[in-house]
């Protein structure tokens, strides 16, 4: 505990840095995955192709991907932007499949009703199919966010910032308290973000609660 109280400013800085690396990929990844998932869901071939490519990308170990992106994209090799891009790639790879599954699980009756009420494809997607996909997409998003928060620490091995620096620094200087503090903080961040996403998901789907209560009374 002595180490923690003596290093509060450092811990605060590293935590903020960590969130700066971990959270934008989740948001960007979600924004990219929705249209891609929609496209994947339109044809069987597109679906197979997208899911296989996503699976392949998700297979690549994070440390390798951090190093492989610069030659592929022309970024500088130790530029922090590589971490953000790599984590975005993982988020998209995970969510494309989730979005496609969620969209395909929307009952056809509902989609047809919307069409019959005069909804065009775009409006139907935004007002009917996407909202009904929220519970499944949020579940995927929670997994992506938690993985992202945990994976940022790997970047510390090749000199990127965030809470992972407490692992490399604690290891090199032999301060177990620093390492443990880092692990606890990463777990806490993951828990908090996971909980917030759960709440956002509930907030976005008020009909789910109505349905549950109605079901119980009926």
């Amino acid at each position, binding site marked *: 505990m002595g180490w923690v109280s003596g290093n509060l400013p450092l811990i605060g800085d590293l935590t903020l840095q960590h969130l700066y690396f971990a959270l934008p990929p989740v948001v960007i990844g979600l924004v990219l995955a929705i249209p891609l998932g929609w496209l994947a869901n339109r044809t069987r071939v597109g679906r197979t192709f997208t899911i296989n490519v996503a699976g392949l990308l998700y297979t690549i*170990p994070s*440390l390798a991907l951090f190093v492989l992106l610069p030659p592929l994209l022309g970024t500088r090799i130790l530029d922090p932007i590589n971490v953000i891009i790599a984590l975005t790639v993982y988020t998209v790879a995970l969510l494309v499949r989730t979005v496609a599954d969620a969209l395909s699980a929307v009952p056809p009756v509902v989609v*047809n009703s919307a069409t019959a009420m005069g909804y065009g494809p775009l409006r139907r997607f935004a007002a009917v199919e996407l909202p009904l996909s929220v519970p499944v997409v949020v579940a995927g998003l929670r997994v992506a966010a938690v993985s992202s928060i945990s994976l940022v620490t790997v970047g510390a091995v090749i000199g990127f910032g965030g809470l992972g620096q407490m692992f490399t620094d604690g290891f090199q200087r032999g301060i177990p308290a620093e390492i443990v503090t880092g692990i606890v903080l990463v777990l806490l961040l993951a828990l908090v973000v996971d909980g917030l996403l759960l709440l956002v998901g509930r907030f976005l789907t008020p009909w789910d609660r109505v349905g549950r209560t109605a079901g119980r009374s009926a």
Partner: protein
Amino acid sequence: MNVFSYLTDPAHWTGSQGIPVRLVEHIGYTLLTVVIALVIAVPIGAWIGHTGRGGFAVVGLANGLRALPTLGLLVLIVGATGLGLLGPITALVILAVPPILAGTYAGVRNVDSAVVDAARGMGMRGREVLLGVELPNALPLIISGIRSSVLQVISTATIAAYVALGGLGRFIIDGLAVRDFPQMIAGSVLVALLAVAADLRHAGLQKLVVSPGLRAAPGPRRLRAVPSKTPDAAHAA
């Protein structure tokens, strides 16, 4: 293309720090870890799935693992055990157990109860049911647990080069130390190829060991979850 010349340079393919040795080391750590994890996880997962006790803990453990920073676990354990094989392998086993445990548990738990009843009706005892019916039926999920476990270990063994383990991660860490970027990139290419190859192998393993009678099952189930008619019907309407 410096990376290409790094990979094609014969000097990098021989000696105790050459690519073949590092590759074999990496595969060796992965096999050792996964075998230990199997010995621990399959019996426990099968028992929990068979009795239905403690399932909540298994699922929680597998989910919690996603949040656990692998680098933190590695440096914490190696800091305690000192450099060498014991520390990193212990950390790798800790990371490898939950996916196999969850896969075995879910596999045994989800065996059609009619199948289990039929086995009992034929006079099979609890142990026979578990070994002869539940485990073979659980194989697809056990193998997918092994699959994520192997990927996790290949990935973390790369990071373990930071705590002086051998394997392909050495090219990334050693390359960084002398700012030899082609070496780092070559190492990353090899790690990525190894991971993809391992993943494809498991797809093959799945085909090889899973009973043909089970193979047909996921098809219809998947069709129901993803009705192929949905988009077309919607567009027609």
